């Protein structure tokens, strides 16, 4: 199973099979391990996303030459569970156009996976900030195209 072949519906289906938290965490950790790590050169302050308990880095690339370019995101963390949650976010957001990204109701999708408790704003684990940053980058991309 590679991350590229998974979409959020697959995840929701897989999550529904787990009846205890341990299996769920094991699966999240596994998703994180399958996500390609960021090169050390990208793990710099400029790519850091605000968080308190662990470190999170996010980079992105915009597809060249397309009328409606897709945005690709890359992320990493020094904590396994956070890294797994980042993998979920990349499955949700990466490889989509800015308009598609802005149309995603992240809260609802994560609630569907019962991951909302990890993403709520009062958990200062960086994951909330990643969603906010991805949305801001998508909004910038839309503005750039309009100007």
């Amino acid at each position, binding site marked *: 199973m590679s991350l590229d072949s998974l979409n959020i519906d697959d995840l929701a289906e897989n999550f529904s099979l787990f009846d205890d938290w341990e299996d769920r965490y094991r699966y999240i950790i596994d998703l994180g391990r399958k996500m390609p790590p960021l090169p050390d050169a990208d793990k710099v302050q400029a790519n850091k996303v605000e968080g308190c*308990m*662990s470190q999170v880095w996010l980079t992105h690339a915009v597809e060249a030459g397309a009328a409606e370019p897709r945005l690709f995101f890359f992320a990493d963390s*020094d*904590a396994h569970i956070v890294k797994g949650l980042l993998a979920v976010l990349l499955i949700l957001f990466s490889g989509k156009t800015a308009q598609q990204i802005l149309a995603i109701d992240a809260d609802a999708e994560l609630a569907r996976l019962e991951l909302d408790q990890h993403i709520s704003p009062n958990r200062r684990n960086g994951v909330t900030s990643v969603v906010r940053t991805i949305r801001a980058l998508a909004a910038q991309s839309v503005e750039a195209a309009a100007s």
Partner: protein
Amino acid sequence: MNAPVAAPLLNHRPFDVEAVRRDFPILSRTVHGKPLAYLDSGASAQKPQMVLDAVMRAYSEEYANVHRGAYWLSERATANYESVRGKIRARLNAADEREIVLTHGATEAFNLIAQTYGRTALQPGDEIIISALEHHSNIVPWHMLRDEKGLVLKIAPIHDDGSFDMAGFEALLTDRTRLVSVAHVSNVLGTVLPVAEITAKAHAAGAVVVIDGCQGVVHRPVDVQAIGCDFYVFAPHKLYAPTGIGVLYGRLDMLERMPPWMGGGDMISSVTYEKSEWAAVPAKFEAGTPPIVSAIGLAAALDYLAQFDAGEIHAHEEAMLAYAMERLADIDGLTVHGTAPGKSGIISFSMAYAHPHDIATVLDRQGVCVRAGHHCAQPLMERLGVPATARASFGMYTNTADIDALVKALRSVQTLFG
């Protein structure tokens, strides 16, 4: 320093941890279907029923603003509020009730010292010494003061086991040292600093001494006169009292010389359009409506603690620490940060195969509350060479079942990540 501060009480209540636990209603709840094992008292302690009752009674029966009304209810509220000062004086063995300033938090108390004593008494080129294990609240106010006044901030080193490096500290003292501010007990490592010795050496160099007692007052009997410090700060919410209130002990002659900081009601003796005259100490430092009900809750927390012999609480916490250290030693790949002799009930640790954030997340599912992160002590994390740690911190109600739950949960961390 080991003698209990409070005089022996006639109605002394023997310390029995299971009976104590029944006094803290939250401890009987479950989290994620598991019994709560609350091991984050270093961040904030739980509250006994006596405190909850006092808070409820203050609002439901005797509430009004203080220092204002000429009516019975306000006088009752004022008496209840002011009663806390004497209890704090006793807890710290301060010489005089007027030495107890009530702030809105310990952080505010540090800023008060920096912005009043620091701004008026320190000159460009003067030196401040803090230690390498301080909480951000005992770092940032000095950074701000340094930058404003052109001061020099020096960091007293620690040894690898987390103990205070006295020789390293002494080497930093010069004739420009004006202020030394150190923790009594480290919030990350549990190290107990030799504050009386530090104070004596700082005074000999002509410096004023501030002690961060936020963890110290919880884990140690405190005698500010024996320590000899000029200021002692603590956060009552870590001492089983409500949030929103802080305590600043300051030697009377110091407080009297210091200018006020925040201006407003309750801190003046007279105001005309032209000028204000300050009220006497401590009111001079207590502008605005104070945290009335939190102070009443703190009075109840101090009454609760005063039932016990402080030495018995201390002995219980030492026994829990010894038990925890022994059990944690059995877990492969677990490193405890801070093993100074005589340390108190705060254990920071990391695991080879899991980030502290992972550890705290997995522990949470099993009802075990620990903190993960830099514990508002980023420079110390740098000194330890770790980005973060997990931390289990004890209170008077911590029992072996809490520690067993921690160890069991840590084994599941091993299974998941190892």
